[in-house]
Structures are given as C-alpha cells and as structure tokens.
C-alpha cells in the first residue's frame, strides 16, 4: 500500500478512527472548544482539567479560582471543561490529532514527559526564563516539568499520600498511629476483626492501584522500577501477609481511591492510605466521623508518592499569551494562599503561607519526602505502574509467591522501558 494523501489528510483519518474507537469505548468525546481571540478585545481561554464538576468540593474550589481570575480581568472568559481522570490523557491526544487542543491543559504531573514527547504541549522555557520564579518551587515538583532540559509546565499544586486514621477506633483500642511499617502491621492486625479491616488502600487493576506498593517499596529504600530487589520483596511480602491475615481486605484489589475512602468513611477500615483530596470530601460527607492524619510509617526511609498536576499550554493554541497570564496569575502566592485551603492541597512552592491547619501541616511535612518517577520511567509511567499493580495482584490474589510475582512484573517493566525511545 502506498502512502496516500498529505499530512493533513492522514491526521484527519487518524482523528476519525480515534473518534470511532472512542464511541466503541462508550464515552463520548467532547465538542470543539478551542479558544478564540475576538477583535473587540474579548478573549476566551479554554482549560481542561480532571478535578471534578463544579458540584463536587474539588471542582467547586477550582471553579471559584477561575471566577476570581475573570473578575479581575475584564474581557477574559475561561471556558473550563471537566474530563474524568481515566479519560483525560486519551481525550487530549484525540483532540491533538484533530488539531483541537485546549489553551491550557491541567495534566497529571507524570504525564508531562509523554505529552511533551508527543508534541501536545509547548515548550515554556523562554517564558519561564523571563518570569524567573522557578527557584521558588520544590525540587520534586519542578522536576516533573522538565523534559530534556526544557520546561513544559508549571506545577499547579502538590499533594502527597499520608495515613488517615479513625480516632475513635484508635482511642478504643488504646493505640497510637504507627511510625514504622512493623508497627503498621501490628496495629492493622489489632484493629481488624473479620468484618472491619485495619488498613484500606487502592490496589485496583491498572496504574491507579500501584500507589500503595510503590509507597511501601520506597519506605524499604527500594526503587519502584526495580522490582527484582530485596526491598521490593520485603514490601510485597508484608502486604501479602497483611492481606492473608485479614489486616487488609482482599477487596483492595478491586478498590479505587474513592472506594478506599468509602471503606474508611463507613467505619469498615480503621486506616487508609490516601491523598489530601479526601480531606474536604470527608468533612463534607461524613461530618460525624472522627479522624485525623498521620505521616506514613517509615522502614528504612521516610517516603511518599507525589500526587500533582502541572499547568501546560496546548501546542497549537493561538492564545498562548493569554494562557500564560492565567497560569502565572494562579501561581501568585496570595492567590494560592486563598485557593489551596479550599482544595486541601499544598503549594508546590515554598513562598506560600500555608496557614496553621494541623492536617495540612502533616501533608506539608509528608510532601517534603515525595517521590516522582524520572526519565524513562516517567515516560512510560502508566505502563510501569500497571505492572507494579500486577505484582501486588499476583501475590495477594493470584497465588504467586512475592518473588515470582516481582520477577514477572520486572520482565514486563524492562520490556516497557525498552519501548521508550
């Protein structure tokens, strides 16, 4: 078959087939909402995010932020579109193929590298140079915006995973939040009774379910992308033991983060590993629940998993200046100081007054030792994390020994990393 048509025709065909495929996957793709700059000084900036619709606590807080920008900037409208997390990357790529990218895309920090490689988002190095505030950012957060020495995004907020614990249950059993993973196993075992479990987390199929195992491997001093290590074996063996002893429910393998939160909120789990996203959700939905947060236990290291988003500018936008203005406005310390408490998120920079909320203080302390993937692992993070979850699944539910499960997953990770050119 010879090549037919030009670049544009091919793109259009790809877009067509992708759209057809999306219909097959039963999720409608959106409409055209490219921004436009009108002649009478009216500017519309389109922004895509996955924080939630305006009727959810995170979505409402984000919408308030956008509304504040519009109030301060006459003639600028921000058209926000919410796309569920699971569909976000795919929708963005489809739109890129159709030449229909948003002006601003608020993407998962770990996707920055693959989106930059794909040419979906712009190089912001020159703008950042002129702006000159990059030194205010925490290293781990800023690192996620770097691709081959250029900057492709600005960290929007930072968040990390910590332990939520049920204060009433802890008081009743007379225990303290665990500080080491050995303690964690004891406390979780003590607080479980067959129908209630000691600890809940998300271990669901796919990359979302890898976080808990990554956290445990980091605590053991291991590298999440090197699973054929004694550290990873320690981590996985402990989870497997906790699950078989009933300290952790076998159901973690079917739970996403929302499900883990529900287990905790219903009193079916005494602790959960989750990000600060659920602080406001729990406060709103379960006002009677007595809970608090503690730092993740450590083993060899104190470590957590970064949960963050970067603000990026679409590669094909005609509104790059307007988009950049929105992004830099959002990152002003006084704007963040007002917005972050509403979201229970933390600043990715060190010059923001974080208030004196004790819960946020714990997350802030936890964030200091956050880990994020780099290099080839960042470029293939979705696949690498999927295989890490696979190891948890195979050992906890599939009857493999932890060592076999890890060796299996490592082989797949090596293959995935070899695929990254």
């Amino acid at each position: 078959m010879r090549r037919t048509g030009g670049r544009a025709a091919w793109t259009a065909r790809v877009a067509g087939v992708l759209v057809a495929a999306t219909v097959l996957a039963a999720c409608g793709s959106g409409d055209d909402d490219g921004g436009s700059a009108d002649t009478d000084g009216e500017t519309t900036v389109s922004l895509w995010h996955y924080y939630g619709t305006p009727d959810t606590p995170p979505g409402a807080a984000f919408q308030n932020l956008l509304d504040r920008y519009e109030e301060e900037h006459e003639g600028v409208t921000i058209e926000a579109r919410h796309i569920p997390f699971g569909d976000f990357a795919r929708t963005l790529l489809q739109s890129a193929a159709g030449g229909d990218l948003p002006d601003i895309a608020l993407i998962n920090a770990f996707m920055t590298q693959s989106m930059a490689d794909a040419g979906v988002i712009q190089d912001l190095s020159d703008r950042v140079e002129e702006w000159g505030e990059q030194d205010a950012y925490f290293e781990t957060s800023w690192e996620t915006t770097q691709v081959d020495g250029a900057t492709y995004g600005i960290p929007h907020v930072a968040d990390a995973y910590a332990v939520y614990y049920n204060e009433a249950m802890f008081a009743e059993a007379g225990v303290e939040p665990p500080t080491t993973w050995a303690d964690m196993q004891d406390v979780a075992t003590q607080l479980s009774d067959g129908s209630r479990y000691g600890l809940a987390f998300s271990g669901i199929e796919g990359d979302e379910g890898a976080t808990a195992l990554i956290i445990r491997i980091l605590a053991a001093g291991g590298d999440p992308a090197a699973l054929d290590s004694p550290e990873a074996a320690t981590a996985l063996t402990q989870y497997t033991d906790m699950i078989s002893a009933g300290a952790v429910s076998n159901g973690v393998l079917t739970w996403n983060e929302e499900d883990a939160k529900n287990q905790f909120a219903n009193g079916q789990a005494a602790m959960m590993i989750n990000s600060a996203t659920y602080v406001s959700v729990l406060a709103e939905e379960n006002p009677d629940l007595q809970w608090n947060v503690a730092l993740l236990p450590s083993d060899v290291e104190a470590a957590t998993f970064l949960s963050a988003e970067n603000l990026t500018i679409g590669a094909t936008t005609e509104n790059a200046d307007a988009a950049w203005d929105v992004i830099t406005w959002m990152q002003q310390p006084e704007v963040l100081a007002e917005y972050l408490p509403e979201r229970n998120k933390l600043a990715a920079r060190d010059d923001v007054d974080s208030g004196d909320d004790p819960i946020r203080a714990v997350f802030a302390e936890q964030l200091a030792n956050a880990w994020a993937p780099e290099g080839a692992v960042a470029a293939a993070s979705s696949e690498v994390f999927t295989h890490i979850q696979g190891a948890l699944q195979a050992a906890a539910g599939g009857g493999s020994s932890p060592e076999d499960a890890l060796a299996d997953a490592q082989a797949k990770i090596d293959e995935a990393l070899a695929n990254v050119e």
Partner: protein
Amino acid sequence: MTQTETRDAAAAARSGRGRGGRRPGDRSGGRGRGPGRWTVYLFVVPAVVFVAATVLYPLIFNIDLSFRDVGVAQIVAGDAEWVGWENYADQLGRSAFWHALVTSLLYTGLAVAFAFGLGMALAVYFNQRFPGRNVMRSLLLLAWILPTVVSANVWRWMLDGSYGLLNTVLEAIGLIDGDMFWLARPVPALFAVVFATAWSFTPFVMILLLAGLQSIPEQLYEAAKIDGAGAWRRFASVTMPLLRPVNLTALLLCFIYTFKTFDTVFLMTRGGPGEATMILPIYAYNEAFQFFRFDTGAVSTTLMLVVPLGLSILYFRYLRKEETA
C-alpha cells in the same frame, strides 16, 4: 446485534441453512431486459456506500495502521513511517499477546458451552405447550435486551466481596464466613465473566434453536414413540441430527459475538485480576489507549479477525458439503 439480525439469523436457522443467498449457478433475478438492467443496482448503492464507509474503510485503515510506526507523537504530528511486518514480529514475540489469545479462546469456549447448553435446555423446554409459555419466553429475552452497561455492573455488585448479593446468600446458608472477593481472584473472576456473558447470550441461542425445533415434523416423534424410544432417545436420535445445521449456526454466531466481546469484561474486571481475564479486545484497548501504542494495538485487532474468519470459512465449506451430499 440488532433485532433484524436476530430475526435473520432465526430465519436462516429455520431454513436449515446458514445463508440466505442464492446458490451458485442460480441466475435468475437482476436480469431485466433493456434500460432497467442496471437501474436495479442503484438500489443497493446506499447500502454498499454505508457498509464501505462504516465497515470496510475503518477495517482497511486499521490494517494499514498495523504496518506503520504509530505512537503518540505520530498521531499528533500526523505522519507515520511504514515499517512492514515489524509490529507483527513484536506482538507475536510477546508472551502477553499469546496469553491474551489463550484467555480469549478459553473465555469464549466456556461462555459458548454454557450459553449453548442452557439455551438448548430452555429451547426444548419451551417447545412444549403449557400456559404462560409466551410470557416466560419474553421475560427471558430481557437478559438479551438489557444493555451490557447495566447487566455487567449488576453482576459486579452482586459479586462484590463486602456487600454483594451472592455473599449474603452464601453466608446465610453457611457456606462462607466473612468477605470473599470473587472478582479479585483469578479463577472465580474468569468464571464470573464467563457466566455473565453466557447469561446474556442464552436467550439468543434459545430463540435460534427454538426456531429449529419448531421445524421438526411432529410425526417423527410419534413414529419414534411407537418404536419404543424414550424421551432421551428421541432427543438424541431425532432432535439432535435434525438440528445439526441450526446448532452449527448458533454455535458459530455465538462464538463470533463472544470472541469480540469487550464491554462485559471491561466493566466487570478490566482484564484483571492480574491478567486472568485479559482477553484480546481488552489487550488491544490497553495497547492503544492506555499505553498509546496504536500500531501494536492495530496488530492485535487485525489478528483478532483471523479466528472468526477461519471458523466462518470452515462453516461455509461444511454447508456446501451438506448441500452436495
């Protein structure tokens, strides 16, 4: 699958032949005299255009895609290099691909076996006359009509480890104690998706077989009875041989539809736990939309065509043999 298709399949089954087309060498029709001769073909143009645009074009595009190097960057930039059989070599060298193929065949084989067994039992049952027969038959069809999004999620909730209906029942009769997460364990999860699929296909099989059963002359059974054949003997020696063409049609259709099923399994397990239910369609979906390797995703969907296609060819050859015999 639409109602019309079901009807056509049932009609084909009733005529004892899986195709409604003309026999080769049958040259009546379409041969008007004079100017009307070509105008008849105009009537099929809309259908041909529709099929070409919605089936053939994507199919050919997909095959073309599988011979190019297409990752995210190529999708966005809109140009892809031709790499020949490289993607095929890559996929065929992957254990995950073979695992998905084996899982697909296992899942399809089991689901078809269950659906066919149940469908046959129900068809024989409903072939008798008793009050309320039609109402019950229509009720059974609900399983077939129910959108997969609904039925798959209902199955998922019923099988949930902590509040699922199945566990509540099992606990009540003392078979299990405490939580049991069926969908988090490989073997139960595979059987769960098999049952859910078989459950929704059973009514379809039942209708096909019922159509076949009703075309068997009553006298044959009466003759068999006089010769002293019992119920089981009548089923084995009269029903089954006469139903053979219908059975084959039902099995083939059922196999093809199940082999390409995506939604039920995706909604229930996403191919998990681990890779226990990682059937080819989900594997291809992950390749293309989770890991953005569109080229190898296209390879697996192209290879996915081979199995049903091979079966169909065998089936048509068998039909021809039947006709000439």
